[in-house]
Each structure stands twice: as structure tokens, then as C-alpha cells.
């Protein structure tokens, strides 16, 4: 029966090639624009660590109080050095790390190689197990290294390739700025995007970090943050004044595995802020936040408004294309009222009529989907030229996208066909036979 309906459908579609082409093109363009924008949107809104995103939390402590820069009643998204170090000392979560972005200059022993600046992070030892960071050689440093401000470093696979030709460099030393550090581990490929651990201060889609140093060692070396440093009052001269200031520039994250741990941490933050208020450091009531990773990405507005607008408008385009298809299918189906009347009179059930036209709509959907696939491919090529490189690299075509595009086209067409099919099944055979 299915095959017969296919033949009927094919014949009907061929009988009116203009109308068929119009429908296929409407579905194709509608689906392609939505899928192109969806690909970009998905690239930017992906979960960078899906197996753990509900366990990672980002505490915020209001170190400024009410001030004109405030966004509503929200505390700043970064922390002061004082608060970050206090929280590390109290160590109330299973795993936690304060961090800030650095950009030391890497010197090579090989005189033919130019020195380069390497993007990196100053973190605590628990950063690596907390984020399940994969290691190729060695591992992170220890808590004792944190306390002793040890000169150790974790480097990326890429940097290891450049400095040591990809060999196991654990125990070797590297030159950063004018100091030497012992390599404790080499990362495997690791470049989560958006770079969620560093949202407070930098670009969500920056280059991969290549050097990780102990936070304590980095502040010893007076390494400055390479990005956001926000103050409501400026500190006096010198690095020590920066550390003691109310300027916010440190990111902070904790791992909390159960809801009771989450509420306990909430209580702890509340208590900490109360203590600060009691000691006179904060002149305002506690105003803390403890967002999990999805909420943090949303708060950090990782997906720019422009991408969201484009996605919404592309979906609207698909809607119009569907309305268009409803009209055209209706015209097409009802034009064949005579044929329907004959089939009904010869004993075809309503269901059979519905199946016949459903198959015909499905064929339009598949063809529209194939056209949509080509146009989506074209759309993504065009988008690659107009997106920042890091995001363009994420917005790629994969098998899943192919299936999604086809599926969307078929679902959209069948949805659009529901009403025309319903009308077709209610064509009264007697009336049609009489008229003809």
C-alpha cells in the first residue's frame, strides 16, 4: 500500500511541478535557516562538562555593597583576593579552587625559537581533580605544593610539543618570565568551551590555556591578572596594596556533590559574610550567590544577544514557511477532491485517504529536508566567514546535525499537512461524484 501511495504521490507532485517546487523550497529554506542558527547557538551554549555541571558551583560574595556600578542587586562576578584566600583557607567544600588568568612569557632553550606569551591560569591543586582534567604525563601538584608556594607547573600538550618535542617532560624545568618551574604534569588535549572556569574575567571562547601555576606561587611572583580588574576604590601603589584592596579579579569554584553539601555551603557563605560585617569590613548585610554551572553560564551571558535574536528570527522564518506550506498543501489536496471522492466511493476509508496524503506530504518533507541539508551546509560555510575563529571551529556539521535537519523538515511538513489532510479526509464522495 505504501508503495502505491508513493506512486500516487509522485504522480501528483509531478502533475504540478511549480507548486511542488514552491513547497520544497519553502521547507528547505525554513529548515536551513533554523538549523544554521541552531548550530551556531548550540556551539555557544553547549555544556562544557556535562557529566559534572550540576556539581560545580560558583560562589559570589558582595564585597562592594550598594554602589552605582551594580547590576540590580547582583554581587560582582569575581572575588577580592582577601575573600578568595579566606575561602580557600576555610576549605569547606570537597574540592575548590581560586583562580585568575595569567600570561607569562615562555622562553625556549632553543635559540632559534622565539619567546612567546602563553595564556594560562593560576589555580590551586584541587582544580585538576575537580574538572577531571586529563593528563598525558604526570599529574597536578599537591596541596603541600600549594602551601609551600612551590615552583611547579602543568603545561598543555601543545606547549610540551613545542618545548620538549612531545616527550615526557615531567621533572624537567621550564622558563616562565625570568623564573624556572618544574613540570609536574602535561595535559592531554583539553579545551572546554565555553571556558566556564574563567567566565568571571575573560572571553568565554578564548584560546586554550597552556600553562597552569599554583595560585600561591603566581601571587608570590606578582603575576598580574591578564584580564578584568574592577574596583570601586583604587588601591594604593604596589602589588601588596592590590592584594589587600576591594578590587575584584579572582574567579572561584567549588565542587558540591549533594544537595545537603550545597545548603551547608550556602550557610557557610552566609556566616562568612556576617563575620565580615561584624568585623566592620562589610558595611552591608550578606549578599551572596551560589550558582551552579548552567546558571553561571546564563549569568555570564555566554551566548550573545545577537546570536539569540538571530535564532529567534530564524525560527519565525520557519513558522512562516510552515504557514505557507499549509496553504499550498491545502490547495493541492483539495484540487484533487474529485479523485478523493472516487476513492472514497470505491471503499477507501478516511484513514486510507489520510495515509495517502500523509505519504505525499512526507515526500515533500524529505525532499525539502535534502534541499535544507545543502542550504544548511552553505549557511554554515557563510557563517564560518563571519564568526570569531574559536566559535566557528565549534559550529561544525556532524551526523547528528544531518539527522536533525532531515527530521525537522519531515516533522515541519507533516505538522503543516495535518490540517490539509484532515480537510481531504472530509471530502464528501457523493458531492464530488455528482458535480463531475
Amino acid at each position: 500500500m505504501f508503495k502505491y501511495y508513493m506512486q500516487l504521490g509522485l504522480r501528483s507532485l509531478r502533475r504540478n511541478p511549480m507548486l511542488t517546487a514552491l513547497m520544497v523550497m519553502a521547507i528547505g529554506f525554513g529548515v536551513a535557516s533554523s538549523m544554521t542558527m541552531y548550530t551556531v547557538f548550540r556551539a555557544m551554549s553547549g555544556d562544557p562538562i556535562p557529566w559534572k555541571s550540576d556539581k560545580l558551583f560558583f560562589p559570589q560574595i558582595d564585597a562592594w555593597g550598594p554602589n552605582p556600578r551594580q547590576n540590580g542587586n547582583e554581587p560582582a562576578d569575581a572575588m577580592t583576593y582577601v575573600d578568595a584566600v579566606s575561602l580557600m583557607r576555610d576549605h569547606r567544600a570537597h574540592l575548590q579552587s581560586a583562580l585568575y588568568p595569567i600570561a607569562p612569557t615562555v622562553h625556549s632553550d632553543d635559540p632559534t625559537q622565539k619567546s612567546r606569551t602563553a595564556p594560562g591560569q593560576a589555580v590551586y591543586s584541587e582544580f585538576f581533580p575537580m574538572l577531571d582534567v586529563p593528563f598525558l604525563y604526570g599529574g597536578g601538584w599537591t596541596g603541600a605544593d600549594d602551601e609551600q608556594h612551590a615552583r611547579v607547573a602543568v603545561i598543555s600538550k601543545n606547549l610540551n610539543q613545542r618545548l620538549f618535542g612531545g616527550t615526557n617532560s615531567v621533572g624537567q624545568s621550564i622558563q616562565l618570565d625570568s623564573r624556572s618551574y618544574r613540570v609536574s604534569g602535561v595535559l592531554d588535549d583539553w579545551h572546554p568551551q565555553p571556558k566556564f572556569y574563567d567566565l568571571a574575567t575573560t572571553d568565554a571562547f578564548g584560546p586554550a590555556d597552556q600553562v597552569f601555576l599554583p595560585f600561591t606561587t603566581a601571587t608570590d611572583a606578582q603575576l598580574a591578572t591578564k584580564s578584568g580588574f574592577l574596583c570601586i576604590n583604587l588601591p594604593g601603589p604596589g602589588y601588596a596594596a592590590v592584594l589587600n584592596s576591594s578590587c575584584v579579579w579572582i574567579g572561584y569554584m567549588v565542587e558540591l556533590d549533594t544537595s545537603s553539601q550545597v545548603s551547608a555551603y550556602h550557610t557557610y557563605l552566609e556566616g562568612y559574610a556576617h563575620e565580615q560585617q561584624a568585623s566592620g569590613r562589610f558595611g552591608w548585610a550578606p549578599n551572596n550567590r551560589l550558582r551552579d554551572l548552567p546558571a553561571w553560564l546564563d549569568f555570564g551571558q555566554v551566548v550573545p544577544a545577537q546570536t539569540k535574536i538571530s535564532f529567534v528570527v530564524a525560527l519565525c522564518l520557519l513558522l512562516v514557511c510552515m504557514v505557507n506550506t499549509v496553504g499550498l498543501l491545502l490547495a493541492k489536496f483539495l484540487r484533487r477532491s474529485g479523485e478523493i471522492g472516487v476513492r472514497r466511493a470505491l471503499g477507501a476509508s478516511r484513514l486510507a485517504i489520510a495515509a495517502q496524503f500523509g505519504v505525499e506530504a512526507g515526500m515533500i518533507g524529505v525532499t525539502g529536508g535534502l534541499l535544507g541539508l545543502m542550504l544548511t551546509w552553505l549557511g554554515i560555510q557563510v557563517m564560518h566567514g563571519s564568526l570569531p575563529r574559536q566559535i566557528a571551529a565549534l559550529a561544525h556539521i556532524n551526523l547528528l546535525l544531518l539527522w536533525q535537519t532531515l527530521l525537522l523538515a519531515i516533522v515541519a511538513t507533516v505538522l503543516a499537512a495535518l490540517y490539509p489532510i484532515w480537510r481531504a479526509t472530509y471530502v464528501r464522495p457523493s458531492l464530488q461524484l455528482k458535480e463531475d
Partner: protein
Amino acid sequence: MSIHPILSALRRHKTGTILIALQIALTLAIVCNALFIIRTQFEKMGRPTGLDEHNLLMVATTQSGIDSSTDAGKATLDASIRADLTALRQLPDVIDAYEARSLPLSGGLWGLGLRLMPSGAYGSHTTYFHADEHTLATLGLRLVAGRNFRSDEIGEDDDFGVLQPAVIIVSQHLADSLFPRGDALGKQIYFTSATKPSTIVGIVERMQTSSTYSGTDSRTWNTTLVPLRLVTPSRHYVVRTRPGRVAAAMQSVPVALYAQDPQRVIPDGSGGDDAGVRSFAQIRAKAYQGDRTLAMLMGVISIILLAVTAAGIAGLSSFWVGQRRRQIGVRRALGATSRDIARYFLIENALISTAGVVVGIVLAYEFNNWLMGKFELTRLSPAYVMVGVVLLFLLSQCAALAPALRAARIAPVEAIRSS
């Protein structure tokens, strides 16, 4: 011709009529918002920065091995900056150069609060740029009042501590917002946490802030030049080249800097964020990349939308013509001219379009409201709705024209021909 028969005919094609009207309404709502967004983006991208943007380039460089926290280290750094600048200014392609941390549109925003008294609330705020006596000439900023910095006024900034230079140059916008009576020159202001005042010695016509995300006018145009040279290992040089020599200078500038210090770092990426040497054209393109992409997408989507809608109207109209061949034949046989028949279909289309457009205007504002709530867009101006209305009405008529003409060609004999 009375529209009564048309209306009663439409009543018999309720669904098709509603579908076309709905499609016109949705298309109108989306297209006028899209046009409005495009216009907004172009206005944003078209704003002049106040700089003479041709023949400007910026180069990033980092020196290491110098401890900038000691006085000896600072002296070394300062000497090397001076040597770099001297070397740059002697290049044949270069007219002038100075050291900067950021430029308009270059990203990275350094801002300060401002007040007219050493205490109390900060009434205003400004983006500040490091500058020396070469800055105005290098950037091509137009001084409208007062004077340039003198070389003996240029101090050092190690990026720590409070900023309180004795003299500053401000943008006209900032001057007017602080001193609306137009007497800003010679007045004193206090920056964040400053105890010493800074005197306004010059006013430049216009200078944009370094970020394109600054929503308000005051965030965008309140800018200040401070007479400070940044003495830190990581820095930028801004270079004005001879006319048409930007490309050549982008090659010769890094070579000259490496000659001064082979150990320094100039990132060698090109075009993107990680590029060490960027022309101002590249900086501008990068700054507005998202806005340009949005405008392009809105344009493409609008064109597809209009094409799909026109095709849909043409398709349904010709279906109706086909369906009514016999009635048309009867009317022709009863004396209607072919012109009457064509007019009938065009008026029918006009009636449907009118209904669609009316609903579309409401939808356009609803959609605009929703966008405003979510994305900080401004209110849709009625002009765009009017343009959209005319555009869609004409589009709809054009789409119906071919089927209407085909209807007009139907011969009276169709009245008696069996389908």
C-alpha cells in the same frame, strides 16, 4: 466594482484567505523588525571614532626578564620604551608613534569615576587612555579648545595605585556633560580615590571608548586622555604611517622592534585577537563582527521570507484561479471584460493583504516589545512599519498579478467546458 461579491467569495475560501493574511501578518512583523535591527546595527557601525582611522596600526609587545617592581627595573623599561619609540619614528613608513594600552574599539576598557569635589558621590565616569605629546598627532584627534600635553607633563604609570595627573584632555561630550555651560577648559575634576585634582587643559572634538558593548551615550563618548606613559613589560605601540603605507609598516614595524630587543614577544597570529600587529581597519572589523553578522543574517532572512511569502501568495492565487475557471467563463460570457476579471483578483488580493497588514502591524509591535524585553533593543519606529506595510502590499499585489492576468485570459467558452 462592488466589493460585495468578492467578500462573499472569500467567505467560501475562509481557510486559504486566513492563511494568506496570516502569512502576510507574520512576514510584516518579522521584516520590519529585521529592517529596524539592520538599521540599528548600521548606525552603530557607522559612528566615527573621532580618530583619523586611515594609516593607523597597533602593535602588541611583551618584554620579560625585567622586574618592573624595582626602581632599576622601571628605569630599564622606561629606557627601552623610549628607544622603541625613537626607532619607530625613524622608520621611513612611519610618521609618528606613541605608547598606548588601548584604542577606541580595540577592546579592554579602563574606566574611572569622576567628581568635582575630592569627596562625595561620583557623578560621572570616563574611559581613560594613556597619552603623551605625540598622541593627538598620531591618532589625528581634533583639538577644539585648549592645548596638547607638553613633554614635561608626561608621567609614569606602573598600573598600580591611584590616577591623579595634574592635567588632562577630555572629549567634548565629557566636557559638556560635566560643565553644561561650555566652560570646561581650566576646570578641575577628581578621579576615583584621587586626593589631587586634575585640570582640563584641552578638549578634543570626539573620541570613542574602547568597547563596543557600551550601551549608553555617556559610556560611549565620555573619554579622557591622561598624560602618563605605561611602564610595564606588556604594552602596545600605536603607529601612524605615511599614506598608503600601512601594509608595508605592518612588516617593518615588528622587524624594527625585534632589532631593539630580540627576546621580546610580538604575537605572530594575523587578523584575530591573537595578532600582534593589527591595522585599525582590522580592529574596527573585529569590534563590529557580531553586529555585522547580525545585520547580514537579518537581511538574508528578510529576503528569504519575502520570497517565500510572494511564492505562497502566487501559488494560492493561481489555485483559486484554476478552481474558478468555470465561474470566470460564466462572468465573461455575461459580458465582463478581461480587465474586470483581472481587477477582481487584484482587489481580492488587496482585501486579504489589508487584513494581513493590519494584524501584522499589531504583531510587529508585539514582537518588538518582546525583543526589547529580552535584548535591550529600542522601540520600533513607525517609519519602518510603514515601509514594511508598503513593501508587503506591493509584493502581495505583484505576486497576485500573474494569476490575475491568467484569469483574464480565460475564454467565455470555459463556462460550458466540463472540467
